[in-house]
């Protein structure tokens, strides 16, 4: 009996840490999950954010691709939702900013050129939230982040490496996966100590923004500017890794079919509406036909086999 894979935990990470992350690892075969390894050693495949949407942009008008900026007290997450995240895309398109939102998403990278990695979020679920939920998220994220920082700091201080360090981390309470992430982070990030110091600083700032609402002795202004703001380049990342246009067309042909096939024109219309370009539609249909997956019951009509 094959056990189902354990669900990847949704990490609580501040935008500051996430945006500083530029280590991407992929383990094993194609179906193995990919991770963004952050400076505190999180092997992040999924994350949970509660923040404020400050901007929603339809970056490809003919294509249903939406980009949103979601701010927390330390920085801004960039979220992309396209045709394959249609629920999230619809949610974003109807949103009036600024708005509190909760997002469960996959950690993704965008590498416009060799060596420059940007971290993005591809939403799985989105919902409206409120201020209390945001504050709670800030505190949960702060607590989790501080725990991770102290593990990494201790690892750095110990001077241990390799399997010794791995074992030491596990006895200190790290999971084996997190221990592995910490080893990778230590190897990859130069000046990790100072990155962690800055991160700690940001975490304190984030907690203070919550505390200042409740204790008049604590005052905390929002950041003047976001340090090392990362503006994703205008090039658009591919948000369709799982499914090529061909599969999308196959679905359209099946969906539109009323039993007698569907006219070529209406398939093209539907495919264009789904954001697939003309050339891909043509090659997609050709390939489906040559693979014997669809046929022409009469001229100008297509039907799935």
């Amino acid at each position, binding site marked *: *009996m094959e056990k189902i894979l354990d669900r990847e935990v949704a*990490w609580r990470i501040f935008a500051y840490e996430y945006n500083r992350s530029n280590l991407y690892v992929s383990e094993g075969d194609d179906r193995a999950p990919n991770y963004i390894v952050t400076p505190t050693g999180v092997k992040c495949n999924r994350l949970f954010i509660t923040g404020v949407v400050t901007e929603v942009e339809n970056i490809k008008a003919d294509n249903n691709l939406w980009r949103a900026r979601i701010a927390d007290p330390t920085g801004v997450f960039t979220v992309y939702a396209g045709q394959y995240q249609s629920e999230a895309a619809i949610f974003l398109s109807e949103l009036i900013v600024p708005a509190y939102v909760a997002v469960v998403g996959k950690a993704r990278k965008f590498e416009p050129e060799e060596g420059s990695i940007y971290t993005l979020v591809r939403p799985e*679920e989105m919902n409206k939230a409120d201020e209390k939920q945001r504050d709670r998220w800030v*505190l949960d994220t702060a607590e989790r982040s501080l725990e991770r920082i102290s593990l990494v700091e201790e690892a750095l201080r110990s001077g241990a490496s390799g399997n010794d360090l791995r074992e030491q981390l596990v006895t200190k309470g790290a999971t084996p996966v997190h221990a592995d992430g910490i080893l990778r982070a230590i190897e990859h990030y130069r000046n990790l100590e100072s990155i962690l110091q800055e991160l700690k600083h940001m975490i304190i700032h984030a907690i203070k923004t919550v*505390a200042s609402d409740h204790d008049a002795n604590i005052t905390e202004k929002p950041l003047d500017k976001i340090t090392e703001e990362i503006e994703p380049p205008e090039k658009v990342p591919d948000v369709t890794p799982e499914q090529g246009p061909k599969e999308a067309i196959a679905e359209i042909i099946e969906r539109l079919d009323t039993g007698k096939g569907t006219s070529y024109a209406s398939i093209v219309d539907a495919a264009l509406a789904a954001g697939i370009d003309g050339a891909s539609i043509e090659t997609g249909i050709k390939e489906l036909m040559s693979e014997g997956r669809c046929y022409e019951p009469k001229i100008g009509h297509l039907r799935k086999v």
Partner: protein
Amino acid sequence: MDIEIAPHVDEIRKALAIEIDSDKLAADLKRLLEFRVPVEEAKRSLIKKYGGGEKSIAKKLKDIAIGDLNIEVTAHILEITKRIITVKKAEKTIFSGILGDETAARSFTAWNDLGLNVGDHVNISQAYVRNWEDRPEVNLGNRSKVIKLSTKIDIAPTGIKKKISDLRDGDVNVESVFTVLKVEFHEINTKDGIKNILNGIAADHNTKVPFTSWILVPEIATGNTIEVKNAYVRSFRGVPTLHINENSKVTKLEMNIQYNEPEKVMIGDIIEKEGAFDTIIEGNILSIRPGSGLISRCPECSRVIQKSVCRVHGKVDEKTDMRIKAIIDDGTGSLTLVLNSELTQKIMGITVDRSKEIAKAAMSQKAVEDEIKRKLLGKILAARGNMSRGEYGVTLVATKVWESPERNGERALELLKRAGYGKNT
């Protein structure tokens, strides 16, 4: 001889009643492996070829695995209950219970009356192992042989000292110290008629587990802190349960262990365990799984059904009900939270009738699921219940669910202190 196949050859030799030359067996085995025959199948066919198969492979109970065939175990009967089941519309009497050896305790089912009694020390051969609630269960079928042994149970003089939180399914000869939080009499039907047993809750400083005592001793009373020797552990619905029987020794201690209910546990910590009893967790709802919202149940067996057809009872007059299956995640781990009808209605603030109206207005049952998503996705919920690990991952079936009072301000100050910052720094 090839190092890799040597252990397999040994195993084959052990399974045979007659002596066969190792090299000959190795050559035969290699030949089969060259044909890319799976190792297990190759071994089985060789055992058969040399007249084996009569002799079972001796195993310790801790080593048995689902799918094992023709095994031999030597164990004592810890419990046995007569049950009447319906097989192909005919009633059949079977016997099920618990077997224990020095390595583990496992459940068993005997499909015929083999005259087994509690306390018997037996050698069982030609038995097989099936899956019962995701755990291996020894099955005694028509071909199984049972020899009653005159030797007494060989319990190691010193038991394994375990904390309540360390108890695992299958543990035997366990020694533990705990406080009895609650105890109740129960009447159950056994092979020899009605028997009184005790069911209760045992606890140490921070963990609770259910227990069952097959003996009625005065030491097991609410509030007593007791030491139990030679007890064993079996899982019931995925939660480890401590069993005390005739062979166990119960002593009342003069000390008192005070149980302090933990406010909550981190999900990452409990999913490491195989099960947890009456646990409190808190996390964000990250996904509402299909099959949440308005559902239809068979009125006979309460199975969830589609289109008024139950897979056991056929066409039925379906009963409408509600439930939620959700992923809850606190940043350290995630599990599936199951809310029953009552809890679903409470947390959603809508009744089944109101849900029916919502579904009717939208002409879709999915409308209720969407309503649940709108209300709960991203929210923080706290829940209490039993956690178990099964085929579909880790699940917590809630007995209670609530929203914790907001205390962001206080917590922010606590966190600042922990991060090494006082006020105004």
